């Protein structure tokens, strides 16, 4: 049991500072910008902060007292984002999993209470995972606040086909050249909120997403091998955390997977060209399909929700 109240309250503050407040500011910034995709992204991010709060309370990472106070102070803000999606078509709502949506509906429509949804599987010993939860929460916060990642997520999930094609720099049937220098600059110079959706930011977000998926996978692969953690809880933590953040890289929604792979194809072709121009001393012949294949494999692993079936540990 993670018993110290002051400690938990500090965690709650961290949540406010690192997740809730930036998400709230992003909604305000998106409202000013007036872009539908950016608004969807910002409201999604704001709802995600609700699910982190929920999960953090369940794991006793946050104190119940602060959670209740926080909920009473911010309920209207959450309701606004809930309604933003509830009023829209199926496509945007389905970015979130059914269980998350049920949790929201249960909270807003049934009892107006933060602790009503009983459809979740619970941890056997959540307190043993507090430090791990803090680390994965930190990883998620950094990804969520990454401007390039936000743009990438926004365009693969929420953009209409017309907007996507316009963005994907096609002129007629011919593809325009990608400025790799601009992509690199976008990767380095990162802000908190997207103020402009440019192609270089989408590609920079693609790299950021790859890195995030790999880091995430590494983290949970290791956690499942950790003998001090209940194996069932390790699987459950992965499933619950991924459930909360998966909407950012949900490859089952609409054309998200196809779009992501199109970006890989574009970049693969451009990178191979660059390698040849620069005469890199590679030990193998670069092939643009290699990147796409690699990304496909990564998507498959990422999208394959770990089953809660225990295996014998080696």
């Amino acid at each position, binding site marked *: *049991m*993670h*018993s*110290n*109240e*002051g*400690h938990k*309250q*500090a*965690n709650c*503050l*961290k949540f*406010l*500072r*690192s997740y*809730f*407040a930036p998400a709230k*500011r992003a909604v305000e910034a998106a409202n000013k910008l007036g872009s539908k995709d950016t608004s969807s992204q910002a409201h999604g991010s704001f709802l995600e902060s609700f699910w982190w709060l929920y999960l953090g309370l369940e794991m006793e990472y946050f104190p119940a*007292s*602060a959670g209740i*106070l926080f909920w009473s*102070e911010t309920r209207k803000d959450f309701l606004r984002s809930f309604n933003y999606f509830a009023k829209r078509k199926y496509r945007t709502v389905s970015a979130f999993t059914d269980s998350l949506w049920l949790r929201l509906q249960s909270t807003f429509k049934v009892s107006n209470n933060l602790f009503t949804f009983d459809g979740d599987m619970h941890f056997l010993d959540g*307190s*043993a995972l*507090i*430090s*791990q939860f*803090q*680390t994965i929460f*930190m*990883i998620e916060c*950094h990804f969520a606040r990454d401007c390039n990642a936000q743009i990438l997520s926004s365009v693969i999930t929420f953009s209409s086909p017309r907007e996507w094609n316009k963005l994907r720099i096609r002129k007629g049937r011919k593809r325009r050249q990608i400025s*790799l*220098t601009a*992509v*690199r600059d976008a*990767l*380095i110079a990162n802000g908190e909120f997207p103020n402009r959706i440019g192609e270089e930011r989408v590609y920079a977000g693609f*790299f950021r997403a*790859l*890195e995030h998926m*790999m*880091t995430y*996978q*590494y*983290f949970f692969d*290791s956690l499942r*091998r*950790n003998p*001090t*953690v209940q194996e069932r809880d390790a699987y459950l933590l992965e499933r619950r955390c991924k459930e909360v953040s998966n909407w950012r890289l949900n490859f089952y929604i609409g054309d998200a997977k196809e779009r992501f792979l199109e970006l890989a194809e574009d970049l693969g072709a451009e*990178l191979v060209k*660059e*390698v040849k121009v*620069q005469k*890199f*001393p*590679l*030990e*193998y012949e670069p092939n643009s399909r290699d990147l796409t294949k690699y990304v496909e494999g990564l998507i498959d692993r990422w999208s394959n929700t770990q089953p809660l079936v225990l295996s014998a540990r080696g």
Partner: protein
Amino acid sequence: MLFCTARMDGPTLKHDWIDLDGHRGSYALLSPKPHKETAIVFVHGYGGDSIKTWLEFQFLIDSLADEYPWYSGCDLFFYKYDGISSHIPASADSFLAFIRDIFPIPRRDLLDTDVQDFPGDFQSAAYEYYRTLLPNQYKHLVLVGHSIGGVVLRMAIWTVLRNAHQILIDEGVHNCDDSEFIKVEPLLGSDLCLFAPANLGVNFTGLLGVIANTRMIGTLLINWLRPVQAAYSDLSSDLPILDDVRKYTEEYSERFPSVLALRARVLWATTEKVVVMWQYKWDGPVEYCKDVTHTEVCKPTPEFRRPLEFVSYAQQRRAQAS
């Protein structure tokens, strides 16, 4: 008041994560123990960052606290910098600005606790809570670097050494001893732990080949995006940066053997293919890890604990000596 300033002890002890004001992407894991003397500062390498380079350090220090109790009384700082487009001397300068905010006296407003978007008294209460987490002064500093982060640290130490020397000369102290150096510049008394440092340069072919086969494909892609990048060119061209840092570090280390920061302990991966694998003349004995790569050597796991032991060793040595 919602937040209290109670301290905790006992089996649930755990480090508090908090972002650092004025240092975007950098964060701290602060121990709630009241009497803390040691700060550990981590500096990532080329294309790395403050989280993924050191992955699992963040929680293994708590979940393995019974076996590595030293960490429970330490504050950990994870520094983030632009390790791609900045030249190494500029990165070293930025790092010094960062470390001045922490050691030996941490800046009181270092912790980013601004929650003005939230109503109520969260902000002041939070500030009070976190303020109690920072000690008035650290006595010990452990600097930990990976790959190019190791070069950044070497250069930063060389820079402060020159400054300290100049200060002593200005004060008329021409035949100074080790303790006078450390008195003028406390950073020189820090322990230096380097994971696979790029002290002697980078093996280009190796880097591209190895990274292509690791999970850090992002780094490979960044390499492809622009071959001539600042930090990289510092390590590969004929610029005298590496030679100078090595030459003067070795020279001063010989003259002032008690200036700890000049003598690093270095941990290598036996499969190292990314950096040129050797160390300075007065560094500690060569240490290797089997079956890990350049990027894995600094990442502890429940099965691979050497990084945890490696960083804590310096302090054990200090304790034994005292």
